[in-house]
């Protein structure tokens, strides 16, 4: 039941994350879930992809430092209290979670320095969601 996760080291430079997504997309590899962790100068990206071995080779050849690790994936009921029930079970099992993120997404959320400018520039290029739309998902 272990799931292979691909981790990538990235310096905090504009466009690096897009390069990773581009490489995978061009090769027909689908990203099922991901998360990013950041420090002042670098970050790591964790990915669950459809073809981890191919993805790793691809990224490695493109000069990225990568790492494989094993994680647990759990289905969470999409209803109030759904996450709580899963986490209670994890706690009861005595497992402590190092990190966690959601997968199988259709929507993402991210933070940027200048949010107004980003929204202005992105408005006619991607589908942006309003606060109300997100609450109603």
């Amino acid at each position, binding site marked *: 039941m272990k799931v292979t*996760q691909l*981790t990538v*080291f*990235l*310096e905090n430079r504009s466009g*690096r994350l897009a390069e990773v997504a581009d490489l995978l997309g061009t090769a027909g590899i689908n990203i099922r879930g991901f998360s990013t*962790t950041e*420090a002042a*100068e*670098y970050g*790591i990206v*964790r990915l669950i992809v459809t073809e981890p071995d191919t993805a790793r080779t691809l990224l490695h050849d493109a*000069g*990225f*430092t*990568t*790492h494989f*690790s094993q994680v647990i994936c759990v289905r969470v009921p999409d209803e109030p209290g759904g996450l709580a029930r899963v986490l209670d079970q994890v706690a009861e099992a005595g497992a402590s979670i*190092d*990190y966690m993120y959601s997968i199988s997404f259709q929507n993402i959320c991210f933070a940027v320095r200048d949010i107004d400018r980003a929204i202005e520039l992105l408005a006619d290029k991607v589908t942006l969601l309003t606060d109300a739309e997100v609450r109603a998902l």
Partner: protein
Amino acid sequence: MTAPSPERLAADNVGGLMWEPAAESLPTPQLGELQIERLRAMLENAYAHVPFYRKKLDGAGLKPGDVGCHGDLAELPFTTKIDLRDHYPFGMFARPRDQIVRVHASSGTTGNPTTVGYTRADIDTWGDLIARTLAAGGVRPGDLLQNAYGYGLFTGGLGLHFGAERLGCTVVPISGGNTERQLKIMRDFGATALACTPSYAMYLGDAARDRGLRPEDLPIRVGFHGAEPWTNELRLQIEAGLGIDALDIYGLSEMGGPGVAFECLCKAGMHVSEDHYMAEIIDPETLRPLPEGEVGELVFTTLSREAQPLIRYRTRDLCSLTSEPCECGRTSARMSKPIGRSDDMLIIRGVNVFPSQIEEVLMSIPEIEPHYQIVVDRKGYLDVIEVWVEVGEDIFAETMGDLERFQRRVQAQIYNVLNIQVAVKLKEPKTIQRSEGKAVRVIDRRKAL
């Protein structure tokens, strides 16, 4: 310690005072004769007591008595820092250990440091040279010197200390750091002279202003600042910040420390103590002497040191010499401020650092790729070093904690060797510049102080 004798101090209108007026204003022909006489005695000493020099001179077919004029100096072999390392700790000493009253050592070296030994007479001579240095800045017996150079193996602290006592000053051996206490003591004790690195003098001036102290609140008149290269622009800032005359002093541990050359109040180059050190400027490539006024590598030959005579020691500092008379009346040649190095040595907060020392540490850590970059910059007045390493798969694990632990481990290992804090920066593979031929390992972004 000899009691200060006021008659030794000749008052001078423009260039401060002279501690040893006869020696400091010796007419050029007599100075030349004195140098040759002392050079011969020095070579006798080196030949008789230092096997390294006996072998070198024999190898060159030279005998100490062969030297008859200044031109003959160019025939003598050079001495380098490597020679000193190879004879660590006492192999270059010309006196048995029981006649050595003190040993200092160079800062920030991996493996063997370079040692410097002094006989009682050497300590006395050194004291006189520092007394000359201080007097040239107008310091008199009764002045109070706040000595903020580091005390210890570094020659700056104890060197200034003994010289100031010899001149008859009250010395406050406060050593470096603790700015709050420096300013309190400067004001409470009424310090009239300060000795420290130029960057620290600048920092003290800013700190005084931040605490509402005006230059006129501090009785300090003059500062002696060496161990780091600095510019005339920084001089003006230090002078404005503390309300002093800021003077450059030059020395290196291999020559015994500070006192080798110093500015007088004319601030027109540093007077070389030529009765104790013979200075040459050579082309660092061809090793041939350069004509007066040209910039090249500074080479010193000791003339009076008993414990450790050094023949044509290559300082690696690039500067020029002039024998034009100075208004102060001193007859010695003056050296310009060093404008650079003929090797890759970096001076970081007064500590000498060779990039090879950092490389040695990095290469001892098997996970590190053989590509790295050293970036030197300045934040405020403080030098900072970044060491860039690429994150290969051997380093990379899946949590930020692992990466941060790795950074701290490398920083700690570099600190253990160099005694300076560096910041290790993690970079993606193949992003550190590869150059064809000689890799550019060091980027120095510091603007001249």
